[in-house]
Structure formats: structure tokens, C-alpha cells
């Protein structure tokens, strides 16, 4: 079966019912999608299927025939980060990094589809993605920075400024 991933067409051998996650990781050696739960619950396996964020652990290969798949390997290399990648780096949105691929792709789909998204729409787009490390504040901040075009692609310079505290959900205690 033919599968286009990050613009490259592959001839894959796996059976039709193999999960897309398994094919990407084990057959194509694209390891940015992670097997966090393999049951649709965590979002670490998220890839873009024709631009839409999808859980690759739940997608049988047969369901994506002819589709264009994007993984984080297809976003931007180290010296030419995409705005979403640069924002995640700048805002410390990746701590252990295991959830990061999924959040990056969910954020990228939002940036491409509705760059004017509100806070609520951002939270909606990221919901269902679990991060156990960051507490989400920095992830939301990074996605919004990318949406607002406030990304500084050069790496963060050392600075001694204290950070602003942020309230994610209106009405919650600061």
C-alpha cells in the first residue's frame, strides 16, 4: 500500500489492520509519534492526516490509504523550526518531551485552520492531550504565542526577568 508521509511516498508492507502508529514507528522508523497508551486516551501518537490531527494508534492503515500524513519530523529541522516548534522551545512547553509531538501537531493544525482562535478554542484543540509534567500553562502560552505571531525563532537568551503568572481558566484561583 502507498502511504505519503512528510511529502515522501512509501510502499508499506504491514497488514491493512496494523495501526498507523505501528507502521510509522516500526516500518518507517519515524519515532516522533509515541505509544503513550495505544487506546486513544493520551494524544502522544497524534499525526496530521490531510492536515487534521488524528490519533495514529486508533487508525488502521487501510483507513489512511491515499492520505497525506505529517509527523513532527515533517515540521521543521533544528535550524529552521516552524513557528509552533519555536514557540514551544521559547516558552518551555516541553519538559520531559514525551507528549510534545502530539501537542505540536494539534497546535499546528489550529494555526493552519483557525489562526484567530480564542483561548477557549485553544483549550478545546488541546483537550484530550495529556501532559503529566508541565501543568499545561506553558503549552497554552506557546500555542497562543504562535497564533499571535509572537515567536522569536532565535533561541531564548539568558535573562533574569521574573515570569508573569497566568490564569488559564477565568475565575480559577491564580
Amino acid at each position, binding site marked *: 500500500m502507498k502511504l505519503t508521509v512528510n511529502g515522501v511516498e512509501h510502499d508499506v508492507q504491514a497488514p491493512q489492520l496494523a495501526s498507523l502508529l505501528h507502521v510509522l*514507528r516500526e516500518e518507517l522508523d519515524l519515532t516522533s509519534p509515541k505509544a503513550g497508551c495505544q487506546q486513544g486516551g493520551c494524544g502522544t501518537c497524534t499525526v496530521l492526516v490531510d492536515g487534521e490531527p488524528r490519533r495514529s494508534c486508533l487508525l488502521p492503515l487501510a483507513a489512511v490509504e491515499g492520505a497525506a500524513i505529517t509527523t*513532527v519530523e515533517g515540521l*521543521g529541522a*533544528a535550524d529552521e523550526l516552524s513557528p509552533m516548534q519555536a514557540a514551544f522551545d521559547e516558552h518551555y512547553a516541553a519538559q*520531559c518531551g514525551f507528549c510534545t509531538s502530539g501537542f505540536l501537531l494539534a497546535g499546528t493544525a489550529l494555526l493552519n485552520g483557525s489562526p484567530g482562535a480564542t483561548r477557549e478554542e485553544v483549550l478545546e484543540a488541546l483537550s484530550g492531550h495529556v501532559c503529566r509534567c508541565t501543568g499545561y500553562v506553558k503549552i497554552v502560552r506557546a500555542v497562543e504565542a504562535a497564533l499571535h505571531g509572537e515567536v522569536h525563532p532565535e533561541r531564548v537568551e539568558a535573562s533574569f526577568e521574573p515570569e508573569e503568572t497566568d490564569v488559564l481558566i477565568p475565575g480559577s484561583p491564580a
Partner: protein
Amino acid sequence: MKAVGARLPRYDGVAHVTGRTTYVDDVRIRGILWTKALRSPHHHAAITRLDASKAEALPGVHAVVTHEDVPKNVYGHLEALGIPADEPLLAENDVRYKGQPIAVVAAGDEDTAREAVELIEIEYEERPAFFDIRKALDPDWPQIHQWGPVYPHFGPHNHRRVRKGNVDRAFDEADVIVEGVYRPQAIEHCPLEPQTALAVPEADGRLTIYSCTQAMYFSMGVVAAHLEWPLNKLKFVGGTVGGGFGGKVDTATETICALLALKSKQPVKWRWTREEEFLASSTRAPWHMEIADALTNDGWILGRRMLTLHDSGAYARFSPYGVTKHAFHHTGAYTIPNVHFDGYVVFTNRVPTTAMRGFGVTSVSFAVETQMNRIAEVLDLDPLQIRLKNANRIGDTTANRITLKDPSTVPVVLAAADRIGYDLPAEYRSMTSDRRSGELLPEHLVAQLGVEETSGNGGGR
């Protein structure tokens, strides 16, 4: 110290956002085998029959390992500290928690490994299970651990104790006694990266082990102990952890991969499913804490009696260490001159519990701080003023007899008050950590004061 308080780029930031960080599961080695485990479906049972021959015979299966294949099957995480071993790597005569591993299979793919696990023939004789730590010392406690209901090796005692001052007198002299019971429950660490290891047999007879452990040298020691190998035959590769929070201190997968790799002579990976994480990975312990405080009407804590029951799960692992830390912190950030603390490590048929973010201390901090608020409520006093009054100060002696040189209770409480705009009277606002005197040195706190520092040896402020 220039980095403190600075915003510095993460050294691994670019690797994370480009998907290039190599977690164990991302290591690419040709021809790896995949592992699946037979785990106990019972909380507590005797194993009356175990026969893995049909699994071994299944095409595609390269190795099956049971307790018989482990050179040193029973190992204790605290053996290096002289504490005897109690936990088998793979269950032998009995299973003591649901999800306990009994046998493991390495096969060319996960489906075959799973199929092989189902071919293992096993019979159990179910036994009564025990979960309520409050009943550990009841006469009808069902025998679940060879050491009895509680961990027995705290020196001459079967519990960790702290004794200081004269607690009976404190309770006799008290105006009011305030009691509280605190029971924080188990928490699964739930890192996004499940437990994963990959063991690769090398041509020179050594093993390379890719590990998600939080404690490389510790895990190396555990694997070497089970294999009865010298450390120099093991090479550990790690340091990239997809979230741990304490749950990746216990060595969960490395030894099994090592044994399967040695038996099959092929690289072997074991990546737990999320279900296995929730079923069989260690958790933060549930605790049962009872506090009784002897108080004066104006808010001094004269004495504390405390009983802690710590749910260790089926085996000891690090629990005795956790309870010891817990004991040292049982007066919190406050100075209480008369204390009587007993802490028990109780065995149950839960999955063994372990470190999680402030091992043993988070639980006692929760209890102590909630107790402080309760005291304030009963005495109708201000909760922050009570904290400042009883706060640790320079020269105070802790329950385990450390004389404090640089306690931080006062500045922390004052900073917290500032941040929430909390009103405090001037005499509290101007408090410091300085050695007690005047009104802050009541009769009951005189004897506990440590000796004044006389030379400039780095002590004091």
C-alpha cells in the same frame, strides 16, 4: 549561581520540538524481540501449578523465563543497607498482588508473545486478600507476608519511632487537645512514557541495557544482583526519561529484558501497555495518619502524639526509607518540644508502593498543615499567626535532634502572606528566624534550645 532565577534555553529543547529526543522505545536495533508477561489475576493466591512448555513450543517464541531462570530471584531494594530481601522478580510459590509478574515471553512480535502467554498453564488456590491497613495488628490478620503484618526491621523495633521530651507531661498540662485523622490515598505516577527497557547482548558477552530509569546506577545494581553478575558486564544507556515522578526509581523492566536477551541471545524490548502501568506499576502509597496535639489556649503546641500506618503493598521495596523520612518531618516546619511518633510499614495485597515527589514527606506535610488549620479553628486563632508563633527558628531542635541553623518557616510564611495580601499584626510582620527570646521563648521551649554557635564555622546566618 548565575543560572538561579535566569531564563536559560533548555539543553534538550530543540531535540524535543523536532521529535529527535531518543527515548528507550525510539532506539533502533535490528531484529528485536517483544515481551509480554503472565500476570496474576488474583490479589492473593498460592500457585499450585506452572507449566510453560506449550508457550515455549509456539513458533515465533524465542524465550520464556520463570522464577527458575533467575539466578537470584528474591531481591530487596534496600539490601545494600542491610535490610533482607523479600520480593521475587517473578512469582514462585504465591502471588500477593493483582498484576504481579509470574512468567515472561519474548517473541518476534507482540501478538505472538501475547498468544504464548495464554498458552502458559497455571493453577491457583485463591487466598483471602488484605487491604485495610488499620486492621494490620488485628489477631485475624490473614497471613500475607513472611515477616508478618508489618515490616519488622527498624533496629530492635517493628516500627519507626521518634521520642523526645516528656509527652505525657505536655498532655497533662495542655489546655486543649486537638486530634485529626488524615488519609491521603494512592496516586499512579502516570508518566506518558510507559515503563520500557531494551537489552542487547553484545559479542563480548556483556549486555547493553537501554533504560528509562530515574536512577541509572541503582537499576544497574539491581540487574547485576539478580543476574549475579559483576557490574562491569553491564552497560546502561539512559538519562532520557519520558516522565517519572518517582515511579521509575523501582527497576521494573530491565532485569526481565536482560534475562530474556541472555536466554534468546537476541535484543529484547519490553514496553508496558497503559493497562499494565495502571495495574502493576508502583504507586504513591496510601497513608493513615493520626495526630493528637497538646495545646495552650494561646496557640502554643506543647506536645504531639502521632501514629502513622503506611501501605507498603505486597513487598517492602523503599517503604521503610519513606517512613523514616516521614518520621523526621512529622512536626512539619514547627518546633514541638515533646513528641511521641510511631510509624508502621504495613503489608497489604496492593501493588507495592514507592517514591513519588517528596517520598514520605508530602503525606505528612498534608497532615501537619491541615492539622495547623484545624488547631486555629478549634482555638479560634489566626492560622498564619499560629504558624509563625510555632515556626522553626535558629537554635531550635527538631524531633530527631538536629539543631537548626537556617530554618525558613518564618520568611516563607511571611512571603506567602504578602503574596495573598494577608493582614498580620506588626509584631508578626516583623518576625525573623532569629534565635528565640522574650515572648517567643516560653517556658516549654527553653530546654529544647540547642547550644549557641560560638565559632565562625559556617553555622548561624
